[in-house]
């Protein structure tokens, strides 16, 4: 019997190694897997490259991981926010590297990695400082920038419900990067509000097919706890 559901958060983040590249789901705090991030902090892996849309809010979740000094590099589209003081401080002191990627290119690069593409030509960013030094091509009268896939060793994502085969459904705007990050990591780990019996999720409604998920863990009150 295949059961991807693990009993503890500790088990969920086991094996994450120093120097790993980790995708973390979420847009701001919506969809951020804070239980898994806390477990990662406790687990101790360091020198990490983190891929997320932002760079932490307040003092919890991704901000706490940054504060703990575990992050070597952030790949994100929008680090600077009203409550990104932890990142801001680390960045200004030169203690964290930043790769700034337009949000849609972040999504496209993650999808390229997940779908086995060698690269993508994207119109976003052409002629701007974020495309400097990159290969470009004119196709059918329009200008494109060559962007390479973004893959990860691990993806930590938050979903609403999952089953033991790893099928997932999400809740509202917490879905954001979860489904695409799940496709682009060697090991995708999901925190869910509930692990439901196989067959309970309507096959027509499953958003992330279990093939993209290696582990899931049920956490209490994962729903709407992210505030």
């Amino acid at each position: 019997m295949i059961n991807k559901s693990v009993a503890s958060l500790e088990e969920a983040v086991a094996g994450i190694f120093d120097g790993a590249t980790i995708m973390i789901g979420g847009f701001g705090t919506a969809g951020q897997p804070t239980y898994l991030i806390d477990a990662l902090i406790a687990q101790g892996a360091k020198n990490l490259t983190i891929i997320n849309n932002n760079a932490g809010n307040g003092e919890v979740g991704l901000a706490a991981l940054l504060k703990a000094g575990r992050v070597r590099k952030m790949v994100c589209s929008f680090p600077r926010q009203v409550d990104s003081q932890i990142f801001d401080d680390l960045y200004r002191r030169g203690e964290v590297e930043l790769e700034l990627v337009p949000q849609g290119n972040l999504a496209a690069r993650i999808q390229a990695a997940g779908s086995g593409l060698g690269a993508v030509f994207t119109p976003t960013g052409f002629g701007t400082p974020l495309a400097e030094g990159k290969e470009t091509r004119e196709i059918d009268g329009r200008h494109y920038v060559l962007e390479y896939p973004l893959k990860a060793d691990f993806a930590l994502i938050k979903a609403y419900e999952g089953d033991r085969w790893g099928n997932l459904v999400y809740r509202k705007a917490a879905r954001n990067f979860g489904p695409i990050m799940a496709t682009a990591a060697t090991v995708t780990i999901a925190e869910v509000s509930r692990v439901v019996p196989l067959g309970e999720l309507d096959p027509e409604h499953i958003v992330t097919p279990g093939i993209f998920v290696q582990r899931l863990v049920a956490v209490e009150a994962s729903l709407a706890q992210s505030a």
Partner: protein
Amino acid sequence: MKKLTRDEMAKRVARDIPEGAYVNLGIGLPTRIANYLPADKEIFLHSENGLLGMGPKPAEGEEDPELINAGKEYVTLLTGGCFFHHGDSFAMMRGGHLDICVLGAYQVSASGDLANWSTGAVDSIPAVGGAMDLAIGARQVFVMMDHLTRDGECKLVENCSYPLTGIGCVSRIYTDLAVIDITEKGPVVREIFNGLSFEELQRITPVTLGFEQLAESA
């Protein structure tokens, strides 16, 4: 020179958004347009974090941390609205499926280049978000901005001095003084507010303006 207020600007932009349009309102000033969309027209608001059919802010006590907009403010979903992941959301943007996006700007050039993500200040932390995708993706890119900076410099310029967001991507500019289309012939004024003369508008604008009112804005 009597400038439109922010709300008057929002109201003016709202008038040009037709029923059935798929629209993204950028963070900041453009968000205000939603307050003036006519309730009797169905207009689909897109938010890049995965919402289509976005509704107004929720009643107090009804806020859901997992139902937010791109500015990370609490919102609601209209009946018939839906959620999707970031890949689909940016396919809507980049793939030309949005009819209109409205963005704020630091500067727009006479040829429609947009600068709205960075002032290039050395001590600032760069952040771009979805601005570059919106700029090049929507069928029509409207910019909503003050005509002049606080220091009195015009934000419609020959060439942008700030880092670019997109090249030749702006279709129309709504300022607090005028509505200006970016055309193949250069910027063409369509409407001037509050009785300001074209000559006066041209005097404070450092690029050559055409003047050709549209029938519907006359």
